[in-house]
């Protein structure tokens, strides 16, 4: 057992998420097969395509699955950190868009700069923008006691429309024709992690962040205080003399920043320009990613990869097995439900998945 206090409500070995995920895939296979047959599709072909398209070859795994998992891992980490502190930040989606807009802005403006300066600048801009997008809900929580679940959801919609406005207005491509920005400067783009693949250093950033966050949460005093406040603000204050409000504010902003980073990394690492509909709802999927990982950062790395593989395989299901996109949503849902089901059945006493505590509402 690495860390003395790692136990508590989230005590679980690092590999449990993997085990659960594997079992879940099997279970999903069954239900999914039945449904697909009913829909008149060939489950075996679908499964084969799924595997081929996610882990079929080293190149596919690296260039598609890993690339897909980056925003999921980053937003998942953002959500995990917030939830650990009892901050129910459902706003990763909006914060992601804010980060993407900022990254695109800096990436376009900073044309002259060398990569060593511009890349960090782009990522910092994304972090700052993500945090900024969390400020309003944070203030409403600590000053007015308005629960952040709803305010962050609302900020998501605002963020999406804000990004849309940007690509139609201030940041629109120089020809002023299409709803997108110009390509950001070469020097602003994330270098490839493995040359010859699409995998960019953003993945390394995400992995290191997950590692660092695990150590931080379980080994550092600040991390322990965060967990304490998340588990019981009263006890944290009375027995730990911890200033719950400071922890809450800090985690809210950092969570927003990390979600913003996800957007920045996506723009600087993959799309190299800002478009409408940049995210298919990563910010929401992230909640499932984080909770399935038991809010353990390293677990998020695993579940993020699982979802990345899932989505990569989904694309292949359409291309190679002719399964319509609608069905893909069904399959993804099945996987999540199967993971949940297994998790509950495997569990003997003591929740493994923490219940997100919206109850009690605002009062910081």
């Amino acid at each position, binding site marked *: 057992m690495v860390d*003395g206090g790692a136990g508590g409500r989230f005590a679980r070995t690092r590999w449990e998420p993997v085990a659960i995920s594997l079992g879940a895939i099997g279970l999903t296979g069954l239900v999914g097969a039945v449904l697909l047959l009913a829909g008149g599709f060939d489950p075996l072909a679908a499964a084969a395509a799924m595997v081929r398209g996610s882990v079929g070859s080293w190149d596919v795994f690296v260039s598609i699955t890993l690339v897909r998992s980056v925003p999921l891992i980053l937003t998942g980490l953002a959500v995990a950190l917030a939830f650990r502190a009892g901050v129910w930040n459902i706003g990763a989606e909006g914060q992601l868009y804010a980060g993407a807009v900022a990254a695109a802005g800096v990436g376009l403006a900073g044309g002259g700069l060398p990569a060593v300066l511009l890349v960090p600048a782009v990522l910092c801009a994304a972090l700052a923008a993500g945090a900024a997008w969390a400020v309003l809900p944070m203030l409403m929580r600590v000053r007015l006691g308005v629960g952040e679940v709803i305010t962050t959801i609302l900020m998501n919609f605002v963020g999406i429309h804000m990004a849309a406005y940007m690509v139609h207005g201030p940041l629109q491509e120089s020809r002023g024709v299409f709803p997108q920005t110009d390509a950001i400067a070469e020097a602003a783009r994330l270098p490839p992690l493995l040359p010859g693949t699409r995998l960019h250093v953003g993945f390394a950033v995400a992995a290191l962040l997950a590692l660092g966050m695990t150590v931080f949460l379980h080994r550092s005093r600040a991390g322990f205080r965060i967990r304490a406040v998340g588990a019981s603000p009263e*006890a944290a204050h009375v027995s730990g003399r911890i200033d719950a409000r400071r922890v809450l504010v800090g985690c809210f902003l950092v969570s927003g920043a990390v979600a913003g980073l996800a957007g920045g990394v996506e723009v600087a690492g993959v799309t190299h320009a800002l478009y409408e509909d940049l995210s298919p709802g990563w910010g929401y999927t992230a909640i499932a990613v984080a909770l399935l990982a038991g809010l353990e950062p390293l677990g998020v790395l695993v579940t993020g990869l699982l979802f990345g593989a899932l989505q990569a395989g989904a694309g292949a299901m359409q291309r190679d097995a002719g399964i319509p996109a609608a069905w893909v949503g069904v399959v993804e849902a099945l996987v999540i439900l199967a993971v949940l089901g297994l998790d509950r059945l495997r569990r003997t006493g003591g929740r493994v998945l923490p219940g997100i505590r919206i109850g009690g509402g605002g009062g910081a």
Partner: protein
Amino acid sequence: MTRPLARLGGIERRFGAVLALDGADLEIRAGEVHGVLGANGAGKSTLLNVLGGMLAPDAGVVEIEGRAVRLGSPRDAWALGIALVHQHFTLVPRLSALENLALGAGHRRGLAGDLEKLMARTGLRVPLDARVEQLGVGDRQRIEILKALLRDPRVLVLDEPTAVLTPDEVDGLFGLLKELAADGRAVVLVAHKLDEVLGVADRITVLRNGRTVLTGPSAGRSVPELVRAMVGGDAVDPIALGLTGVDAGATGAMSRPPAERGETTTSARALHAGGVVVRLRGAALADRSGPGVHGVDLEIRRGEIVGVAGVEGNGQRALALLASGRAVPDSGSAELPSGIGFIPQDRSTEGLIAEFDLVENVGLALQREPEYVRGPWMRWDAVRDAAERIRERFEVAAPSVTTLAGALSGGNQQRVIVGRELTLARDFLVAENPTRGLDVAAAAFVHAELRRMATEGVGVLLVSTDLDEVLGLSNRVYAIARGRLHDVPEERRTREGVGAFMLGGTADG
């Protein structure tokens, strides 16, 4: 009465690793008050929860009037005339007292009317329209009891109902229980104050480690005998037993000499020379739930135990928060030392984090101590050692230090907190109802520890609703009423005397 009204036989119940009940028996006859005794964690609540339909036993039989029954839910129990008053409150904080009483009472006309009658008859009065979250523990306990009585039960089961009631209320309640028994019902009562139990119970049952070790008439039984049955050893702490009028210093052979330092019987008075360690001047603090405190002038010297007696909800909370440095005074000043320990009254929500293990719960307080951190990092190894020490010295009944705090019985939870806070209390210790819900041995142990701290020159502020505790331990005594402290002069330090001071200022019962 030959045939028992209710009988539980060979009940077993396991919680994960813990075997809470290991073939316990309980036999309840009509017309009796039946006392159930046992150390913390003995299985009393578990057994009564089985009788109340809250818990399904893993094995064993439940018979009502000789008929084997299955109690799948509280509803089943009520149907058979069994009503349970839980040890831990089972009220909905944001609903009014009336709504809580109506809950589960089903469609019922004139509920308020019935309640008025009931309150009049039993003398248990509660403000029906107040939201429960705004009420003190006393009121909450009364609501719980009324809730049970509303069902007009044949078997009334009360799990530690007296802990938070004033002496008068306790007497009132016991009178009521006797009446109920008198008209052919049965009452099952759990309490840790053996003299209380012996006073009211016709028969008793003693549990130890989930087994019934003694059962029979209470007549002619002595406290030490019961203690021996409960804990095996013979811990006799007059204060904890509620034998009144004891002198703090002299008596009180402790359950066990504190580990490292040898036996110490030095009276705390010896150290009166000690310098002032805490100074509150005109301190005031508002408090949402309760009157708060105002104009508090209080000096505590090293080596003395200052007791504050009072009826629940007269500002004890605010006083404790001020003195422990958890809150800064709205007005006035508070000079506090650095090494403060605080034993809060609400162990489950304020003292411990249920889903953290013991190591983490110890770390919760120690993380402010330099020796348990290195730079930004926690020294978990050191914390773990501290937790181990506490577990051994304070005899916490937990499989290991990685047990979740939530899985401990109330008594054992309290031991963890006391152990933890004593290590912090280098200069000053605030103890808020430190023995509430503790069994005799545990209470005796806590009292001994408080005394030891004093003798080592630590100033102690003991805030308690337990008069015997305050009188028995304190060098100086205050009564708190409506948020004001009243110094109780030497000659008035008796149950009656202090009681007068307490009630003198109090508004609510």
